[in-house]
């Protein structure tokens, strides 16, 4: 039985994926899997190919080799829209919010896939269209409540402090009600308190909605505490994979980390 929070069977499988930009190899023959409901971390020094890995998973980049199995379907290259449709959502390392829009609208945009009323219905805001809007507004409000950003609902995201923007970014991803949530350095550039909050939210998400989470971080510290299993990348190669303690004690990992400075 795999209720929310308890890891279940494999949801995502990455098999021998390689990616290079004009000769430069970003990812080199990487394989790993992610189980339902688990928090899976991909760590590694900067430039280890972590972000590229995410971008491959949700189809922003197209790998030259390898394939991806998600929810039983196999892809040689995903495309972002299909990924979104299948329930993969993500946040961005350097917050990619919609600057010109309010917190609410940013998160409503996350519901776009689910909103179906036609252009004509919207133009005249016919009953159906309006009811749809309200239905989704309610869903979004629950997330706003969950992330404790009620006070900023109608503020343009540009005006929010960095930490809150990160939260809204997460909120937008959650608004998609994803099966798989990709977090690209969710704690980058945060102070200790903000990091603790973010950890809490990540765990709560995993816990309340049973969302499977893949997150990237470059510093081991925080991640080790909140993730069930960890993949370690270095220069595009996989140098470690397992539960935090195994990884922490692995020589290859230690070397890789001694090599880099923080």
């Amino acid at each position: 039985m795999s209720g929310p929070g308890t890891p279940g069977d494999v949801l995502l499988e990455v098999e021998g994926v390689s990616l290079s930009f004009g000769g430069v190899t970003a990812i080199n023959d990487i394989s790993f899997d992610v189980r339902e409901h688990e928090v899976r971390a991909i760590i590694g020094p900067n430039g280890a190919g972590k972000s590229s890995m995410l971008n491959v998973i949700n189809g922003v980049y197209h790998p030259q080799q390898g394939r991806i199995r998600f929810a039983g379907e196999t892809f040689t290259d995903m495309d972002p829209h299909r990924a979104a449709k299948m329930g993969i959502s993500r946040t961005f390392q350097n917050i990619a919010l919609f600057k010109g829009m309010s917190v609410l609208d940013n998160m409503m945009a996350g519901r776009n896939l689910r909103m179906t009323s036609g252009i004509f219905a919207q133009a005249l805001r016919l009953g159906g269209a309006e009811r749809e809007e309200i239905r989704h507004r309610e869903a979004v409000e629950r997330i706003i409540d969950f992330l404790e950003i009620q006070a900023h609902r109608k503020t343009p995201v540009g005006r929010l402090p960095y930490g809150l923007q990160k939260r809204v970014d997460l909120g937008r991803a959650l608004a998609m009600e994803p099966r798989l949530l990709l977090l690209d350095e969710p704690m980058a550039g945060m102070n200790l308190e903000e990091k603790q909050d973010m950890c809490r939210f990540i765990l709560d998400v995993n816990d309340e909605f049973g969302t499977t989470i893949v997150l990237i971080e470059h510093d081991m510290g925080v991640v080790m505490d909140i993730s069930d299993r960890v993949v370690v990348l270095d220069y595009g190669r996989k140098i470690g994979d397992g539960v935090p303690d195994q990884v922490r004690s692995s020589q290859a990992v230690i070397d890789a980390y001694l090599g880099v400075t923080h």
Partner: protein
Amino acid sequence: MKRHLPVILLCAVLTAGLFTPLVTGASSPGFWVEVLLGGLMAGVLYSLVALGLVLIFKASGVFNFAQGAMVLFAALAVARLSEKMPMWAAVLIAIGIMVLFAVVVERLVLRPLVNQEPIALLMATLGVSYFLDGFGQTLWGGDIYKIEFGISKDPVMILESLFQGGILVNKDDMAAALVAIALVALLALFFQKTATGRALRAVADDHQAAQSIGIPLNRIWVIVWSVAGIVALVAGMVWGGKLGVQFSLAEVALKALPVVILGGFESVPGAIIGGLIIGVGEKMAEVFFGPVLVKTFDLAGGGIENWFAYVLALAFLLVRPEGLFGERRIDRV
């Protein structure tokens, strides 16, 4: 290879189009060459204006919609000044004015708008061009003026030996072409050999890098805009000399847009070759393809050259967005 196929096809079609009149005998070789030369002539001028665009784009990432206005302005300046003083003096003063203009633009437009998104900058240059049009015509007057180089306009026959009937060309056209070519060569030298030139290229590649090797961006902008201004001046004179200095110059100069699209925004050779392609292309299309259109669709006259350049550029955009010589980039997340 797969990526290049459409481009190759497109080029093939163009070349085919270029030679059909000869093959089908729709035109006498002599006339064909005349048209070709005419096209090249116009092309050289397009290249000149396009060159200005490319310089500015390389250095400041700004797409200078005002290039046309600059051409008009410079031409007007020379035309009106040369009424009161010797040509060389007029040109010198005009150059001075264009440099001054560059300084003003850098101060009042570029600096405040630094690292805004390109669209904003494009619109700003739109504003500049409007201002310049108005200003130029208030300052110098809005009528049609002549620029006299003292080169006779009477046509000469050349290559009678090759084609029966020979080919008609105007001396001043020749002169203009030569001037233009000379200028292009000069710029090429400037970019390859001089320190500033190399600096400019550095900026184009990477602003941070440029600053790190100790070049104040602002000065670079001034230089680039000045150079562009001088290029515009030359273009304006050549052109003005040909069809008289008037408002339409600004419109004609718009043709530089498709040219750079074709050649790629950041490539000097691209600008030149693009210019020639467009010049020849639209002339040929006008002369040989136009009548066919008119006949088949019963049009009220041809005038294809009004849009040919743009549609051609559009076609290129669709098959090769980065242009002939531009390099493509992947945007990271």
